[in-house]
């Protein structure tokens, strides 16, 4: 690793000012992506001359849930904070499932949700769950605050909608409707300490007669960004929550995704997994919606 300056501001304004002043300075939270990239000289941006820690900024921290307004997760909340949150586990199980499998226990104690999202990896495990829960990302920067829906945040591999010197402040997630459930799973060669070859999240809201009233499916690691499977969602809307419709949805999802072949798996393998895992996540989400 090369030399760099290190700053640890205690206020958000101060952090924004430092980002502006240091020119090429990078924000850091848990560092589980950034430090590894810097050590391997594999950053997608020039090697940063300054590192600005966000961990001492109170405004970026904390997890709050309210039955009517929903969930707020501060950007520096760790994966462990999220995976261990009783509220998230109960109301947004896919988010807890995504956060609870990032790296090792040590990684989860350091890695933050802001880092996981802003790193912009197509395989980020918290991204598909936020997509299926219609999350909004609150951003601040030189030109003030703005808010973006999750599906507009991811732009390309390693690229997000963050403008230069902008920071993610928090993620807001609406309260789920009654008879709703969500689930996330990924395929990895190892049982832990790994990265998704394919990740699939699903969130469903069921009618009283077990039809699909609302459906979201999101896929990780099969496109340049985490993506919604919109054709599959359209197909499933209004369908009965049955084996048959889930099986057909699985085929639709496999057909509509657009994976590449790389060192972690072939496109063919990924497409197959999208089908298998979509069906499994639809079943799991529907069971949860039914109170199972």
């Amino acid at each position: 690793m090369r030399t760099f300056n290190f700053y640890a501001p205690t206020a958000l304004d101060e952090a924004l000012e430092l980002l502006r002043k240091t020119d090429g300075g990078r924000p850091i939270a848990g560092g589980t992506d950034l430090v590894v990239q810097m050590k391997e000289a594999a950053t997608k941006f020039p090697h940063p001359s300054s590192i600005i820690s966000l961990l001492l900024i109170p405004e970026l921290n904390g997890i709050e849930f309210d039955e009517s307004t929903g969930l707020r997760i501060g950007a520096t909340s760790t994966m462990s904070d999220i995976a261990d949150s009783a509220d998230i586990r109960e109301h947004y199980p896919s988010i807890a499932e995504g956060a609870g499998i990032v790296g090792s226990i040590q990684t989860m104690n350091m890695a933050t949700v802001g880092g996981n999202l802003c790193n912009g990896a197509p395989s980020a495990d918290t991204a598909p769950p936020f997509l299926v829960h219609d999350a909004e990302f609150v951003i601040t920067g030189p030109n003030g605050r703005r808010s973006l829906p999750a599906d507009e945040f991811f732009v390309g591999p390693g690229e997000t909608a963050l403008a230069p010197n902008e920071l993610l402040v928090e993620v807001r997630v609406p309260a789920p409707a009654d008879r709703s459930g969500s689930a996330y799973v990924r395929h990895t060669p190892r049982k832990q300490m790994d990265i998704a070859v394919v990740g699939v999240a699903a969130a469903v809201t069921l009618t009283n007669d077990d039809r699909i009233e609302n459906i979201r499916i999101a896929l990780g690691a099969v496109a340049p960004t985490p993506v919604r499977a919109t054709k599959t969602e359209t197909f499933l809307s209004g369908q009965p929550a049955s084996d048959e419709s889930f099986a057909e949805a699985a085929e639709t999802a496999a057909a509509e995704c657009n994976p590449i072949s790389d060192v972690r798996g072939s496109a063919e393998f990924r497409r197959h997994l999208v089908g298998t895992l979509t069906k499994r996540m639809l079943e799991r989400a529907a069971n949860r919606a039914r109170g199972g």
Partner: protein
Amino acid sequence: MAQETKTRDKAGDSEYTAVGKPTIRIEGVGKVTGQTKFADDLTFPHMLHAKVLGSPHAHARVKSVDTADARQHPGVEAVIAAADLPAYKMNPSNRRGVIFAVDEVLFQGQPIAAVLASDPHVAEEALALIKVEYEPLTAVTDPISAMEDGSPLVRSAISDVDRSEEKGHVTIDVEQEEAEGAPSNIASKINFSRGDVEAGFAEADCVVEQTWRSAMVHQSYIEPHATIADFDNSGELSVWTSTQAPFYVRDELCQTLGIHESKIRVTATEVGGGFGGKIFLTELITAALAIVVKRPVKYIMSRKEDMLAATPAPFAQVELKTGMKADGTLVALKARLIYDSGAFPGAPVMPGCLFVGGYYKCPNLHIEGFEVLTNKVSVGALRAPGAHNATHAIESHMDIMARELGLDPLEARMKNAVEEGDPLPSGQPYPRIGLKDCLRAISESDVWKRRREVEGQANRGVGVAIGGWIGGLQPASAIVGLNGDGTIDVTVGSADISGTNTSFQQIAAEVLNVPLSSVNVTTGDTKTAPYAGMSAGSKTTYTVGKAVKLAAEDAKRQMLDIAAQRFEASPDELSVADGKVHLDGDDDKVLTFARLGKMTTNFGARFAPVVGRGTMSTRKSAPGFSAQAAEVEIDPDTGAITVLGYAIVQDAGFAINPLSVEGQMQGGASQGLGIALSEEMKFDEEGRLLNANLLDYRLPTTRDLPPIETIIVEVPSEEGPYGARIIGEPSIVPGGATIANAVADAIGVRVTDIPITPERVLRALGKL
């Protein structure tokens, strides 16, 4: 000599007081509490850090190296390229004989130049300022097509190949036919024949022919290569390095740099994992840099460098045809083994050829081995180098043939298994071995016994396989001294990579009949320690342990002689117990070791110090075998494999420290499971490594590994201390085949390549 076999019970009962008892490793507490000092923990005044620039290309001509800008970088003390090196005996045919690539780079990551600075981060910054002009050449990456006439050449011709390091891992008299004649990528060939193989196939009721592949894998020790070197004004070279082979490092530095062995001090620092890969790599470059700057130089490889440019284990393709009679008799075996050596010779195709036809009696065999060069990093040893690749093939065949003939896979193996006197493919007869004992013991393992229960359950299966290793042989010596306070010091020259110093403590305590706490074991440096071979080839306990036993016996003899003079008795009437010498039958005549210590070290003492000396050399190997069984479950929709249970049996000869032996068995089995399931170095068509990190190069984690049942059997070796035989390596050998056989049992189809990944499972099932 009667052969006594037993399966060790966990209590470790025996007539001995120290050996054979589960003993906590001497160095264990320091390692788990973080107190152990590894090479990177050492620092010296005026020390410089080296960072090395590696080639981004797998094959290119180096047109120029411009270090001017890097030299100007603030904080940089020196930039050293090939032209700046001290004179050394370069041998372009050997990896160990080339410090920096001169005209041609042969693999990605091959060192080009180094930067030295007091601050390692500054040195790294300056690397980016070195300008190298390359002319890319065709990278030859596939060893199979590289063998064909007309293939582009990997490199200029090789000659004068030095195979001394390989001999440390497996010592056997087999000649490799070195390449000669027209330029070719084939570095060497091996040929073994016996009987009439075609007549054998004609006799067979079942003939199976299949091609098997096993991936290039990396030792993936926790600690990457790490070396510090210092060359002082008196002309003495000191090297502190993470090596399994301090004396070998000394000898190589002597030959390459032209410094007398007596002027080189190599200290083997605690090795953070070696597995055959920590023999000799960063020592030469670090020493050369230290000679240039006359200051201590530290070179620690990054994980990425280590994955790109250390010495991993080869990809191999094994084309195997075997024939069996209906009664299970193996009658013919024909094999062609191709090992990818990377850019320099050194692939362990010879052990592969020995073991593909060396586990079973087979009257007719024909085995050909090829060591093929490619533009990849050159390979080295990984725990029983070359054996797992060949074992994967032959052990899969044994299963397939047994299944086709309706035979029990263990029975089929038992019927053909080699015993004492049976020849290896090279003709050498086996000494006493315990293969059949291992087969009997695995049939009693919990995993194998669950086989009946698992049968018929969809997507679950149980498999079994065997594997073995011959081991290396090198002379060894040891010193056992009595201190003034009656404690015992054991000094050896072998690096302790597997708990051997603890076994030496037990051996000395056993001979001298003292508690373990009275015995201290030190690995000395090459100027102070008695000679030992490299801690490789599983030979350390077998050879150095024997020397320690002889040295302790010599020390005991000296102590008894002194006591005999004191008591005016004959040494025959004396014995040692509880830290005392006793005159038999007279309870008043005792001499404590502390008293003896004083009598041999005090001012004006009458007796000379007690210094026991043990030296040994043997040409008799003590091969070790292992049998393993696995239970697996397959997810047929994702291809995911879960190993539900695993059992390993190993013949230890005599387990001096059963805790260490079990640790070796579990560790080797775990590495075997990594080779079977997830470890694979992947290269693109230009010869660039795609997964030079421990995320995409997947070692099994604790959650990937099942509980491992260990069963030690003991068929004593003829020459090892207390009957101990080689321990470290056999455990890694059968894993690939064991899992392959279990997976085939579960899903009814064969995956012919290891690692058996989910994607390969789905392909075998026809789902992709």
